[in-house]
């Protein structure tokens, strides 16, 4: 049996079975054993007569490798977290120092979070003109936000956000019960334009200062309806630009 094979490698002298057993019982620190040499010895021994049964020791070897790699990291116990020995794991059930430290830190961050919530609430009551003036800035202030020091990662994050946004459903469904709202809105929009002596009226003037999507859609539909009826003409200079509406059909 390969388990009986005698090893004389750096950090250990004895049978392979003894090696596994001693590590399991915490009698030997696997960190000090050169497992590559162990593997070589096992391969040498198996070469003359290959029998699948004989490969089980390699499973044990791989477990040792796993344990060794774990033990090279700070704060881990030899068999405790590897599942190699359930009994040993149960004996070592007390939370490790690392866990305790993480938990303490996490609790501190929960307090930070509550502090941030207070700051957020306080700061949200200071209103910025951007919340209401969007898109209405004088032409010489390019577009809304100025960024400093752009990195390739900012480009990546922006691209990912655009792709996600473009996958989102941007459609808006007008439900049956909004029919009444729509006909009310058609009447409102038309009388608004007539009040202004037939216009021209900007689309922005017929919606509130910070319109919700629903209000914008219903108002837009109302304008389209009036255009179709030949009651108003609508004109948009550039895509996504403001829509200028005048009474009477387009000339």
């Amino acid at each position, binding site marked *: 049996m390969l388990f009986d094979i005698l090893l004389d490698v750096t950090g250990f002298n004895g049978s392979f079975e003894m090696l596994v057993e001693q590590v399991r019982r915490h009698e030997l620190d696997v960190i000090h054993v050169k497992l590559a040499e162990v593997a070589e010895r096992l391969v040498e021994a198996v070469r003359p007569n290959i029998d699948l049964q004989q490969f089980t020791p390699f499973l044990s070897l791989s477990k040792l490798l796993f344990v060794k790699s774990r033990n090279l990291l700070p704060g881990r116990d030899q068999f405790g977290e590897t599942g190699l020995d359930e009994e040993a794991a149960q004996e070592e059930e007390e939370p490790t120092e690392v866990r305790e430290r993480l938990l303490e830190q996490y609790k501190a961050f929960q307090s930070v979070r509550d502090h941030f919530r207070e700051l957020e609430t306080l700061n949200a009551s200071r209103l910025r*003109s951007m919340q209401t003036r969007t898109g209405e800035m004088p032409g010489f202030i390019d577009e809304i*936000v100025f960024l400093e020091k*752009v990195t390739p990662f900012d480009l990546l994050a922006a691209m990912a956000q*655009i792709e996600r946004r473009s996958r989102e459903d941007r459609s808006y469904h007008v439900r049956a019960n909004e029919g009444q709202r729509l006909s009310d809105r058609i009447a409102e929009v038309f009388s608004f334009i007539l009040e202004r002596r037939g216009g021209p009226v900007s689309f922005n003037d017929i919606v509130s200062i910070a319109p919700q999507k629903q209000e914008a859609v219903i108002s837009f539909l109302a304008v389209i309806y009036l255009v179709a009826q030949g009651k108003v003409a609508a004109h948009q200079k550039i*895509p996504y*630009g403001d829509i200028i509406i005048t009474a009477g059909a387009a000339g």
Partner: protein
Amino acid sequence: MLTVQEIANVVEGILFLSPRPVKLSDIAVNLDVDPGLLNEAMERLKERYADCGLELCGVAGGFELTSRKDYVEHLRAFFGELDKSRLSRAALETMSIIAYKQPVSRADIEDLRGVNSSGAIHSLLDKSLIRISDRGETIGRPFMYSTTPDFLRYLGLEKLEDLPPIESFEKKV
């Protein structure tokens, strides 16, 4: 009940936030304040804005807060200089689309962003971060945009292939 000074402060906030002239009657109705007190508050505001960097203008039956016209050249100069050294959010988005999808037309960019992008394209052209590299094969043979060597320098990249791949984002974030 709001005092005259409090009314003046609320109106100042409204004028600061509003993108359009505001009618006093709208304020009176919305905030339920006495028109007499509101007029008094407006007098205080007019005094406050008599001689400063902003102007309280009476226009189209309402009031509006604007920057004072005497300083328009300084304001233009300030924002113009700032624009030279900075990118806007719109320009950043437009630049990432061009970087990752080049050569790409304005219509494709606007399709992805969902908003007009001509301002952003112009500002990137001005900064030599992008260039017109070609004309597309589709209707109208639109200009196609690509990035420039200045773009690489600006981001501290040696070559385009050094841009972090877009797939890495979904995998790692």
